[in-house]
């Protein structure tokens, strides 16, 4: 089953190198296949360059889709990052 959750990018600089690195750090802890969907494009949430080139500045709405045994844990780990704006402004 695919788990989905929507987020809005709220930190000022958007998903840049540092924030994308934090996402990859989190996602690579999980077995699940994790993707970030923006409009009709998608990025592998375990690839920093995929995330960067998805281009998500402040205000972008994205959907995270996780598929696998630890999908729920993966989603909640990402929710912590997004909800805290990656510890940025």
């Amino acid at each position, binding site marked *: 089953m695919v788990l989905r959750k929507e987020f*809005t990018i*709220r930190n000022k*600089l*958007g*998903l*840049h*190198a*540092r924030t*994308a*690195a*934090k996402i*990859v*750090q989190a996602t690579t802890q999980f077995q699940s296949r994790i993707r970030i969907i923006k409009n009709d494009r998608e990025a*592998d949430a375990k*690839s*920093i*360059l*995929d995330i*960067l*080139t998805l*281009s*998500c*500045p*402040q*205000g972008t709405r994205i959907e995270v889709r996780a598929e696998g045994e630890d999908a729920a844990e993966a989603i909640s780990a990402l929710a912590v990052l997004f909800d805290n*704006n990656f510890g940025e*402004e």
Partner: protein
Amino acid sequence: MPPGSARMVLDGIGVTPGIAIGKAHRVDRDRISRVYYHLLSPLQKREEIERFEAAVSKAEFDLREIRSKIVGDFPEHVYILDAHLHILQDQMLYNETIRIIEEQGINAEWALRQALENAQRLFAKIDDEYIRGRFSDVDYVAAQVLSNLTGRNAQSVAGIKERVIIVAHDLSPADTMQLQVEKTLGFVTDMGGKTSHTAIITRSLDIPAVVGLENVTQAVNSGELMVVDGTVGRVIIDPDEELLNYYHERQFQLERYRKELARSAKLPAETEDGFSIKIEANIEFLEEVVAVIDNGAEGIGLYRTEYLYLNSEYPPDEETLFWNYREVAEIIYPEMVTIRTLDIGADKFSAKMGPCGETNPALGLRAIRLCLQENELFRTQLRAILRVSGITRNVQIMFPMISGVGELRAAKAILTEVMESLAQEGTKFDQSLHVGIMIEVPSAVAVADLLAREVDFFSIGTNDLVQYTLAIDRVNKQVAHLYEPLHPAILRMVKQASDAGRKAGIPVSLCGEMAGEPLYIPILLGFELDSLSMNALAVPRVKQIIRNANLEESKACLDEVLQFSTASQINEYLRELTWRRFREDFELFENKLGTLSSTHGDLS
């Protein structure tokens, strides 16, 4: 014009002001020639892949080494190095290079180069400038692997012995981490812009730097004498003695002047002939208040309150706003803070609000219009501001984007209702709190006399006033050059609004970028405004220039300028005047006019 000549003069983007004079130290990187060759047998391909993997492992090892040596003070750098480690292992570079080696049978250097070019194409399509600029991180990581592949040791900046100016294609955070600040006089790089890592780091270290010079690494040799003028973004290679003396003198003066500015930042801005103008600062975040005080601003002339709204899915509640405003008011006390009510477009807000898909948001449902429609949103903010005013008594309210008297009355009616309900509850607020408006819509200027009767102050918001008056969207590159704050229409409108305010006996302030521009000071003084509100960092210099200015002369200047028919004429006149009048200041800060002779043709 500076005296003397040099072997070469290059202009780039100055990112950290100040002057550095010293010997160049070139850090070579990414200039490694890559030989192209085909691999025929499966065995050759397998060996090539192993060679690539070894080069990646080595790069990873090196990055981890640097990372482990970083001390606690630089968490930023740790994150950037983490990002580099992830890039190193990313499928777009790593898996892709291996795939190219396998499928096309070419050597690792060329395969990696191809993967890098594919990534570059993807990055080039990104709209957001900051994220697009992060390709430099990818480029840097790939260069590390490439230099491992060719076996040449990348020259490190760690072993530098004497104080030098670092000349590099691009400086990575790993490089800057290894730099010893006390041995670095300045930085110059081929790559980069105002938001590049080099820019951010050098600014935090306060080391003069010029980036985006394109080919400085090819122009200069290690050991050559050079001058880095970070104030104007100029690099001079091998200057003659006359020019060198000039820069030594300029360096000395600039340092002395910056110290003097810092010392005199708290002195009032009063002209030679005794005209006082209040200098305030604009802020967006609570954290900026300290810089406002440090830079000698006499209050907050504009507190933009959008931040708390943009950062949450739902509008912030009254308590959140109350504590935020209270903290700002308490820190700046006894000076005043002018809180501008929500200036936000329906487009930028929660999707639940307002019609989606406005074709022209700048002329759409925004600012006071949105607040008048979304009544509860507005009341919540007003309640929070009023409650703070009852405690600190140094708060003023300002409505944005008022286009006429009807709108103002509607906003004030809601304010009165909120005041009444607070009074009924027995909640204190400042009964004599001042209520003012932004003058930023051309129609407000036309009826400024009518508006002035019904408010306690005006604040002329030049950013939007220029945009709406000249019908220019300055983010649109096609027309950005037509965004002219010195357009005669703008000057006439500012004059009309400030005259109307003075006639009605209310204070008039000017906020917006125009307020912090030293070139405009003579005309701003000529309007006889009560205050200017600007970026806090601009305050010390503006105050200093005003102390050397003269009201009568400024009024004459404004009269003269109002006779001109184009912005470029006015600009030229002001340049000439300010250079003559504030020579010391302008020579130190904006020495852009000087063209230097170079013995290698006219490169300046």
